[in-house]
């Protein structure tokens, strides 16, 4: 397989206050086995050698676990593949001569720090508001002390797989963080360990979500389509049910 030449159009922004612009790059020698981030690494090596500023992008694990690499590729958060984080996307998805537009996840609550890197601490503050359980610290408790039905634990685990990448916010036409918040609530409220703070948690996380400036949910379900772990918007329906239970 011969190497490809890819045309890149990448958002460059010096800092939060800079207005930002797109810059075009032509990158030759792109191998189909490269991951998307490796392709960006090659671009950055080239930029550094030429004495230019490399493109800043977030990553950590590069194995679809950490959620850092959320970027919007040709208008789709994490790129064209379902249930795939940008780091797990490979260049074999593209053909020689393709143009790829790369933008940061855009939301008022996610200010751009530099280029493709955004500040996602708004999601952390939603977690701080109630995305935890109160337990005694110390030695880990005996695993079978609190029995949890298998199907309940499976469902809770499905929601616990949220990696907090913010693709749901990036893809939502309203920039809503409902899928993120709902997946955390559906995970914790479902388990016996999460029960004591159930109502308090639900109200606090919903309130924080709005305070951070995320938009309203319009049930577009685009969040479910871009979620790299495939969390269903059924969780958003569940969040509404939990909220109703909490306020009455």
């Amino acid at each position: 397989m011969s190497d490809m030449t890819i045309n890149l159009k990448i958002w460059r922004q010096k800092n939060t206050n800079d207005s930002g612009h797109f810059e075009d790059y032509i990158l030759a020698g792109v191998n189909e086995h490269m991951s998307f981030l490796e392709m960006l690494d090659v671009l950055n090596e080239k930029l550094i050698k030429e004495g230019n500023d490399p493109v800043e992008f977030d990553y950590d694990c590069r194995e679809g676990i950490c959620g850092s690499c959320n970027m919007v590729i040709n208008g789709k958060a994490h790129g064209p593949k379902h249930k795939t984080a940008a780091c797990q996307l490979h260049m074999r998805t593209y053909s020689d001569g393709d143009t790829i537009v790369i933008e940061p996840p855009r939301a008022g609550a996610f200010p751009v720090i530099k280029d493709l890197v955004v500040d996602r601490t708004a999601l952390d503050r939603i977690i701080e508001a109630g995305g935890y359980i109160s337990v005694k610290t110390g030695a880990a408790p005996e695993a079978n002390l609190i029995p949890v039905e298998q199907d309940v634990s499976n469902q809770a685990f499905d929601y616990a797989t949220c990696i907090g990448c913010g693709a749901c916010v990036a893809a939502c036409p309203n920039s809503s963080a409902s899928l993120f918040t709902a997946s955390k609530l559906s995970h914790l409220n479902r388990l016996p360990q999460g029960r004591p703070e159930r109502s308090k948690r639900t109200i606090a996380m919903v309130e924080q979500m709005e305070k951070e400036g995320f938009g309203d949910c319009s049930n577009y379900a685009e969040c479910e389509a871009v979620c790299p772990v495939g969390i269903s918007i059924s969780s958003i329906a569940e969040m509404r049910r939990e909220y109703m239970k909490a306020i009455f």
Partner: protein
Amino acid sequence: MPSLLEAFQSQVGRKILTGITGVLLVFFIIFHLAGNLAIFGDPDAMNSYSYFLHQFGPLLWIARIGLLLIFVIHAWIGISIWLKKRKARPVDYKVYSSKGGPSKQSLSSRSMAFTGVVLLIFVVFHINTFALGDMGDAMLADGTVVHDVKTLVIDTFQNPLYAFGYTFVMILLGAHLGHGIWSAFTSLTLRSKKASAVIYSIGVIAAIFIAVGFLVIPLYIYFGGGCDAALIHCN
């Protein structure tokens, strides 16, 4: 702990309120459609139906005010969500597209604010034309004198602007309900993924039936139907 009033102003509360008011409006629309379709029934059916409703007196006014309130809340929340959307994403994407799959992004869902605002404006004109319009009297078969709403309807839809304008708006109503019915169920906490797919299909089919049910009437009248019964001049 927020008060109920505060809770229904939260993002989640607003959405639940949109769902509740939406469902109530769909019930009203179905009720309204049933009345409209009376035009195809017995020559007296439409006027007797209107007479029957007017018999309720003050109760009818309570229903009207309630309906107006529901409509205003639904529209208010919808418009405010749309306005907030720009604030929530000050810089828009250069390229944006749906990833498909489970996504419910469609012309119907993306145009909810537009179709909603058109329907809001339409309702004002609609009430002015039919509820407040000049109506003569008609005599039912049993000799009761009633408002002749049927002749007003037939007269109005002789005008191509009304006939085709109404038809167009009813297509937009169908588009609004295409996303709206399913969305209301999701807002009102429908959790099952399988049921969600079924309800989405039922919602789209119901939206088509409702839109077609409404729009056949102006078209039927404009193209000459119902003229003989009303004994009026038609084009």
